[in-house]
């Protein structure tokens, strides 16, 4: 065992890449939950986004189109959730689970002909003088564009929720849908839009997984990333910037355990490979200790009876 074989800069760089899929999915789910809707179908939307993005990228040779397709696919699956929970008033937990089960099946079906293929490469932020900055350049400033887009997205969501009127309305819907309805806001419509946004983000996260961080397609490749994204929202106490901290923390655990396995640490592989999941549980336990900051209407069905 030789711990010095682990290069901390490369570790930081790879943890950012490993975290971006869950970061993207989690920021979308945060907006959804802020409107009081709990969509447990993140895993399903992610994996459908993963294959949709992969398929389109491979066929067109253009990764940007792939990301667009992934957003669309994720949003389409989310639309099914939106229709069922908002118009058919179905139970959100059950519908979210159905979305995940369906998404896993559908993606496997769509991906049959794509196993073993290579996606086109994605442009990197390759500015010589930035990359040459010691330490920071290697770890933070030499990534693909999606990494920076994901951080900008978090900033945009933060600004939108905190400083815009629409963001305020959105939060009002999540805190007390009856009151928001009484004031005259269209609770259902706002929620549908948020769900679609969440689906698009999850799809984007999935595509990042298949196009960049893993850069191949295998069945069931999300392996719980969507569920970790859901846990991340709890970890972040529904605060956008905390999503980044949380995602990089989880990404760090994932990358570190892979690195430790690679250098042959004497800890059995089973403990290392289950570390991301165990850490998620531990974080959930720690975060659920305090006063809950969850939106007050989270998971409750809204039906305007007039």
């Amino acid at each position: 065992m030789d711990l010095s074989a682990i290069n901390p800069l490369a570790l930081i760089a790879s943890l950012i890449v490993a975290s971006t899929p869950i970061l993207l999915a989690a920021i979308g789910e945060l907006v959804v939950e802020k409107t009081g809707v709990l969509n447990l179908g993140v895993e399903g939307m992610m994996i459908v986004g993963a294959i949709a993005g992969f398929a389109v990228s491979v066929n067109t040779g253009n990764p940007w189109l792939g990301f667009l397709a992934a957003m669309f696919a994720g949003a389409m699956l989310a639309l099914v959730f939106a229709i069922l929970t908002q118009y058919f008033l179905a139970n959100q937990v059950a519908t979210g689970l159905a979305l995940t089960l369906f998404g896993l099946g559908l993606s496997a079906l769509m991906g049959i002909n794509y196993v073993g293929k290579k996606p086109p490469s994605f442009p990197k932020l390759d500015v010589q003088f930035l990359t040459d900055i010691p330490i920071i350049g290697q770890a933070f400033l030499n990534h693909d564009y999606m990494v920076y887009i994901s951080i900008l997205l978090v900033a945009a969501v933060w600004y939108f929720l905190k400083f815009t009127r629409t963001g305020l309305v959105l939060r009002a819907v999540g805190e007390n849908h009856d009151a928001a309805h009484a004031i005259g806001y269209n609770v259902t419509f706002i929620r549908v839009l948020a769900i679609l946004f969440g689906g698009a983000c999850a799809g984007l996260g999935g595509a990042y997984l298949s196009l960049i961080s893993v850069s191949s397609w295998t069945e069931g490749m999300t392996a719980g990333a969507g569920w970790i994204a859901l846990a991340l929202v709890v970890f972040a106490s529904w605060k956008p910037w905390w999503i980044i901290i949380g995602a990089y923390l989880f990404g760090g655990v994932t990358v570190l355990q892979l690195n430790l396995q690679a250098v042959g640490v004497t800890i059995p592989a089973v403990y290392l490979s289950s570390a991301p999941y165990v850490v998620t549980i531990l974080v959930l336990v720690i975060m659920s200790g305090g006063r809950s900051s969850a939106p007050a209407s989270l998971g409750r069905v809204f039906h305007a009876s007039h």
Partner: protein
Amino acid sequence: MFRLEARPQPSKLWIGISPILAVLATMVAGGFLFAALGKDPFISIRMIFWDPLFGEFASYYRGQLLTKAGPLILIALGLSIGFRAGIWNIGAEGQYIMGALCGAAIGLAMYPLDAWYIFPLMVLGGALGGWAWAMIPAILRNRFGTNEILVSLMLVYVAEKILAAAALGLLKNPEGRGFPGSRNLANWASSANPDLIAGTGMHWGVVAAFIAVIGSYVLMQRHLIGFQINLTGQSPRAAMFAGVVPAKVVAFTLGLSGALAGLAGLFEVTGPAGQISIDFGSGYGFTAIIVAFLGRLNPFGILLAGLLLALTYIGGNVAEQEGLPAAAIQAFQGMLLFFLLAFDLLSNFRIRLAHSSVSKKEAV
């Protein structure tokens, strides 16, 4: 346009009809899916729903029906009791794996002893393994208020890692020439769980599933615990006033569903699967969620729903031999749950023409 009017009580009629409608709608939508894949939709649907029961090789497939339905029913019954209380154990797959691992470990520790008590001990171990794995989310929820959905699901992945490690290490067959996987439990008389009547697929797990159907009916309809569980699900506040301790309901429902899932895993590993292997996890724990909802969280409904989804599994195998991708059946099962949830609207709401009711109000 249309307006939804909440029913004071869910309609009994629609609760019964909506699963049937959902199955029919799934067949239609599935037909489109198969057509999109370039397969003849009518032949595909016939292969899934008709051929396993009445086709050329039906005598073989019919036996499979009970074998596949057994674990689904056993797991779904446990889940349904939790769902009724609003406690969402979605990690049954992990409890299924841990049950199988614990039970198999007990058996393998006594190999090659020839004794009647080994199998019962393994059954006990299976139930305990599943129970213990489900008590993790239960204790965390009771002690810290942690969300049981996420914890139980995370534990599925942990269980899969432990399964892989056990198949490659601790439980590996010492005489297996280095191949991963345990000794074959189905070939060892003390641990085998064969068909009780040859060719019917009826092993001890299926018997346990039938007993559990009756047991959970009695529990939910005739026992105080069942009343408390139902009350907790419908109105947690009312349940508190009635003296129900929420923590006990959480521990009981999660523990019970874990034990049943563990049992299902144990019966599977000693019978149809035969050994602990890396790919022992079969997705039964997730499909059982669909079974529980399709069966309306009712024990007898779950019995029928379990048989139906077992049929889709077997039909999927039939269709696979005819060149239909195996994943199609998973998408198909997910679709079934979508339609079921959509049709549930009709049991909880009346659909009225909004226009007519407005004019009525004005007339008054």
